[in-house]
């Protein structure tokens, strides 16, 4: 790769524009009526760079998984657009749709429930090849399965095993091999290492890193563990109650967090290094994430924010630049704030 990339390569692989996903809550058995709306995703704009890893972090219920499902077209957005490689995924024709399904794959959290217990590993990994009709010869498929197993660090003999005969780490390797069967460009990893023990988690993180480099993959890595996200991602978006609070390059965002929520999250994470742990600030966030059914007016974070002022309860803060490539949705610390944010760390 040299300077002067053609625009098609320099352009982001995935773009979300003002994405909204709202779920009506219905009541009544005979006459069903909508009584409330959960705004799971409420106006998210995000670009995922080609060949890079975008981390999407936030606590339970912040909407991160819904974003992943909407990109996979498992969920229809209420409004807004998703573009994949320049094309709006809502308006794909049949052939375009088939191509899209091949190019976008997912690895899920729980390798105990995401693999069919009645299929052996060979069948699980070969299934996408059959569904997409890319390899009609059984011998050819067997070779491809062995190749994918090897790529994910498993011996070819594993093709005959069933999910219950494997450990959690081995199952997750199978889940990854299945996701790679169709040579995708983009893989959504939804809490892909969260269910694993630390030593196994580190193996799978290493595997994801190696595969990204070897196969030039782009990842959307959805997670709640900031240390893992910090380790694996080039860019990070922090979500809170359906909105993006802060987005930027990982190194920059962790070194110089601009949003009070990001700062609080970072301070809440203990590290296993006693010296470092003692020297870090520990400001604990009060309260819990409010209900997305009736979210606070204005900035959704303001009821828990130590910097909140009167205006925060009325105006929704836009995501504005905060240094280069870094954006923050906060009127107190972000761009246009009366006092300059404390830079450097």
């Amino acid at each position: 790769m040299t300077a002067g990339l053609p625009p098609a390569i320099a352009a982001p692989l995935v773009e979300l524009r003002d994405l909204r996903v709202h779920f009506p809550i219905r009541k009544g058995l005979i006459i069903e009526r909508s009584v409330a709306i959960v705004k799971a995703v409420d106006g998210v704009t995000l670009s995922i760079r080609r060949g890079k890893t975008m981390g999407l972090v936030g606590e339970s219920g912040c909407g991160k998984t819904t974003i992943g499902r909407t990109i996979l077209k498992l969920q229809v957005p209420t409004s807004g657009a998703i573009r994949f490689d320049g094309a709006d995924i809502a308006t794909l024709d049949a052939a375009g749709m088939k191509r899209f399904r091949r190019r976008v794959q997912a690895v899920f959290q729980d390798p105990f429930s995401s693999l069919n217990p009645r299929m052996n590993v060979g069948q699980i990994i070969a299934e996408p090849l059959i569904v997409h009709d890319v390899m009609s010869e059984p011998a050819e498929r067997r070779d491809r399965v062995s190749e994918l197993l090897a790529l994910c660090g498993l011996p070819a003999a594993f093709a005959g095993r069933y999910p219950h005969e494997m450990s959690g780490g081995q199952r997750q390797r199978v889940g990854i091999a299945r996701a790679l069967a169709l040579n995708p460009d983009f893989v959504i990893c939804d809490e892909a290492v969260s269910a694993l023990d630390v030593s196994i988690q580190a193996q799978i993180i290493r595997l994801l890193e190696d595969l990204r480099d070897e196969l030039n993959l782009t990842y959307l890595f959805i997670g709640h563990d900031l240390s893992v996200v910090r380790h694996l991602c080039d860019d990070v978006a922090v979500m809170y109650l359906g909105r993006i609070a802060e987005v930027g390059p990982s190194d920059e965002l962790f070194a110089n967090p601009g949003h009070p929520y990001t700062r609080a999250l970072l301070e809440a994470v203990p590290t296993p290094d006693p010296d470092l742990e003692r020297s870090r600030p520990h400001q604990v966030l009060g309260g819990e994430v409010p209900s997305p059914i009736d979210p606070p007016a204005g900035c959704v974070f303001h009821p828990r924010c130590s910097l909140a002022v009167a205006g925060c309860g009325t105006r929704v803060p836009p995501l504005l630049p905060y240094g280069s490539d870094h954006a923050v949705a906060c009127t107190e610390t972000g761009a246009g704030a009366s006092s300059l944010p404390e830079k450097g760390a």
Partner: protein
Amino acid sequence: MSALLEVRDLDKRYRTRHGVIHAVQGVSFDVREKETVALVGESGCGKSTVALSLLHLIEHDGGRVRFEGAEFDQLKGRREQELRRDLSIVFQNPYSSLNPRMRIKDIVGEPMRTAYGTRGRELVERVREQLEAVGLGPEHLRRFPHEFSGGQRQRIAIARALALEPKLLILDEPTAALDVSVQAQVLNLLRELQRRLGLSYLLISHNLATVESIADRVLVMYFGRIVESGTVSEVFNDPRHPYTRALLDSVPSIDPSQRHRLKPLEGDLPSPLRPPPGCAFAPRCARAAHDCTARPPPLGSIGSREAACYHPLGG
């Protein structure tokens, strides 16, 4: 400081259809007054079996447990009941550990009703105090568990565990089911309660960062045995057992200056039905030599801490 809890050579075997699993093998440790001791290790290492044996929720097969100087296993009747009040537990998942059909006042009041026969207005008053101690107001008394968030439920579970004023609280992964910002609140609450009530904690956890933030001493378990023990700063800054080192190297760091390429352990835990001869960690250990596979290494003193390794790191 005297030992509040003394565990010696604790042993537990599970008999399964496929054979015997030796879940806990010769585990010995003390918990002193006002101290937090953490038992860490990955799934299946036996840490929860140790906790459940201490509470007699499962019967162990060998070893002794002394609590406040008395042989806990041999006590019967009233004396056992009295001693049990001094030992309590908070479970991992507050979504399943609270009875969904009971109101908060009954959940927190049940231990006092059962142990002391407290009833009526006095009971409500006591429950109100317990809730206040964990940061919950009296407006919650008549509510049901489903009306609470995960962090609030864990506070309710802590209030219930403290109802009989125990001396030792077993915390079995107390924050593993909670969101990051709520985890910090619960850890702070536990720290504050310990200071105020002079409690001792036995913390069971797989999360090294949680252990670091609240424990004084740490016991690292692998495959049913303690492989290293010492103060948290000794063990985490300068581990002697290769397994402890590997665990620490497996945790990604949030600090940019600490960003390192992860050095994961190879392979998986061995099958507990076919344990390897000698040191159980030898098949995954870079330092393993001939003697490692001959017989399991005993837990030996290295300075002020202990490690079970024939070829320890450092020193």
